[in-house]
């Protein structure tokens, strides 16, 4: 009975599958995996990245090098183990051509080997830039459309140094990126470090003990790195503790288009450093920001800009190879040329596949319509190379 039932049916199914799958293979779309945080307290960041990547797809007409492409989004739920699992699924099951996204350094570090070594798949980080990957562990399959973690705080430190700030209190969460950020600001800021605190990540949202220490230390400035929802909490508590207006706050990645709607006026006048600001005057950026605003009613964030660039970078490689991504070596070579128009203006890769780029100082202001946004006020660094590049053996 069993043979009668399953035998012919299985053969028939297999035959049908074979017939169907052959023509599909011939024009199979280019697949891009996108690992980001789409649930929980940091979901808003992932949503902004998804919107920007979708906008890039729209601007490309849904095609790369003449081939249609699809973006498969996966939620890392803000956890390294889940991020690794999802990356594994994208590489092994979906067999994606590229993988991108990665907000968090710890998620990226957990997923890296699975993707670049075991899977031999090209990874473009659209945000996280842990120092390890920029130096000894640099990888031919890894590219970044963001920065190395140390760089943005280095730009902030340089600015504060020039401004003549004498003492600075540093605060960051206790994980890979937090450590890089602290190291970064100390590379360029040579004044006195009035104190430094690492807080538990990600569950510490109460900064009462640290704020009391800041009050006692009386620094000339406070430097923070609290991305996403944590930045909202920090600013609220900073103001509740009565420190706002007494000690100026300087930040990296703690005030952006995503957090501003919740931080509201508390963010006004807080200076930060960033490699991209929504008002950078190049055509690609004007189009990106205008179309994003038209569609979603808000400004895009730097997370979004980096995601948009990541898709555009892949498209430039696919374009040059006329959609034939079969040779990984050729794809890598084309990626390295960075032959695309970045929303941040000039863009080229250094030896470790991290961008060589400018960093700007931004202020929080209100636009003509009264909406809170960020505005470029100074250029802190031009054509900056990250401090780990020399440790990377790649050329």
């Amino acid at each position, binding site marked *: 009975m069993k043979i009668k039932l399953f035998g012919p049916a299985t053969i028939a199914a297999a035959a049908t599958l074979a017939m169907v799958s052959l023509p599909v293979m011939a024009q199979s779309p280019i697949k891009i995996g996108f690992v980001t945080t*789409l*649930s*929980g*307290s940091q*979901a*808003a960041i992932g*949503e902004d990245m998804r919107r920007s990547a979708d906008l890039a797809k729209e601007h490309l007409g849904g095609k790369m090098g003449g081939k249609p492409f699809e973006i498969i989004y996966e939620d890392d739920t803000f956890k390294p183990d889940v991020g690794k699992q999802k990356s594994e699924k994208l590489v092994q099951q979906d067999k994606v051509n590229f993988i991108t996204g990665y907000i968090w350094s710890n998620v990226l570090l957990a997923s890296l080997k699975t993707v670049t070594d075991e899977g031999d798949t090209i990874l473009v980080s659209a945000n996280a830039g842990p120092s390890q990957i920029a130096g000894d562990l640099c990888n031919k399959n890894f590219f970044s459309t963001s920065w190395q973690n140390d760089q943005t705080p280095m730009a902030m430190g340089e600015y504060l140094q020039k401004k003549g700030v004498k003492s600075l209190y540093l605060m960051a969460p*206790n994980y890979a990126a937090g*450590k890089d950020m*602290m190291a970064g600001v100390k590379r360029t800021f040579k004044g006195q*470090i009035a104190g*430094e*605190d*690492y*807080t*538990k990540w990600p*569950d*510490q*949202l*109460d900064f*009462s*003990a*640290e704020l*009391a*220490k800041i*009050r*006692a230390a009386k620094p000339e400035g406070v430097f923070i790195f609290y991305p996403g*929802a944590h930045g*909202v*909490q920090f600013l*609220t*508590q900073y103001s*509740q*503790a*009565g420190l706002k207006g007494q000690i100026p706050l300087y930040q990296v990645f703690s005030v952006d288009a995503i957090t501003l709607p*919740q931080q509201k006026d508390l963010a006004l006048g807080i200076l930060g450093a960033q490699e991209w600001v929504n008002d950078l005057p190049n055509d690609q950026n004007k189009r990106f920001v205008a179309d994003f605003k038209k569609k979603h009613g808000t400004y895009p964030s730097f997370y979004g800009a980096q995601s948009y660039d990541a898709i555009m970078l892949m498209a430039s490689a696919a374009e040059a190879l006329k959609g034939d991504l079969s040779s990984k070596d050729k794809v890598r070579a084309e990626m390295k040329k960075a032959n695309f128009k970045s929303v941040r203006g000039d863009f080229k890769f250094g030896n470790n596949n991290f961008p060589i780029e400018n960093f700007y100082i931004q202020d929080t202001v209100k636009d003509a319509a009264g909406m809170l946004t960020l505005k470029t006020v100074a250029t802190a660094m031009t054509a900056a190379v990250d401090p780990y590049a020399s440790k990377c053996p790649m050329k």
Partner: protein
Amino acid sequence: MEYLLLQILNGVQLGLLMFLLAAGLTLTFGIMDLVNLAHGSLYMMGAYIAWTLIAWTDSFVMGALLTLPATFLLGVVVERVVARRLYARDHLDQVLATFGLILFFNELVRVIWGPAGKSIAVPKFLAHTIEIMPGAPYPAYRFAIILVGAAVALLLAWLVTRTRVGMLIRAGASNRRMIAALGVNIELLFSLVFGLGAVFAALAGLMAAPLTSVKIGMGDDILILTFVIIVIGGIGSIKGAFVAAMLVGQIDIIGRAFLPDMLKTFLSPSAAASAAPSISQVLVYVLMAGVLIWRPTGLFGQKN
């Protein structure tokens, strides 16, 4: 001096919040012999329900006051529908079922309120600082938490030591079977205690919300610490929960405020700063281990 005072206040505030959570947990554990992992979910539900009611009434105080009866009802429903079936089972079954409740509540919140999380603003009349001492400004909202927490602790002490219900609760905590045998309506008592526990958890959740944020799984992080507190204090003892919560609150703050400076005397500043949060997290467990060696039933636990 001002600095020390501020840090002690921070510890008291944290301790009182955790006491509110621990009070309900220690009662359900002590009286019903129920390991309720879903206690953290009640904390989360309190914050979410408060968010809705505050938006609806447009007043923090009104919203908060309405949240309390709402979560009492929620607690009673959970007790009647789920918890009641678990009292006679062993602890492993209870852990499994209440863990299921955590997943259920997390998913429920995702369906009703969405995945992104909410924030509750500090009420306007508390959004300033007050001078505890000259040169020691303290956020008024945190001070309000201390006052409310202390008031609830006093109320609870009065309820447990001076009222008939309290007498039954104490009797239940020391010998459950005996009070059932004496003809006390134990089902009603259990519902009441569970509902009361839910109210305290919700109060902690809604008061913590403006300081942290309202998000899925917010109760899961704090639940483990709450269990540590009731183990240190002695299961079933309100007094123990209070003392242990205060201890844990102070230890947490000391770890964050003073440990980096102490470590700096023999470590590099960066190493000290990054080691301190990890060590302060461990300190609480060291305290628990110490108490368990010294007094296996906790500081104020019943000796069996």
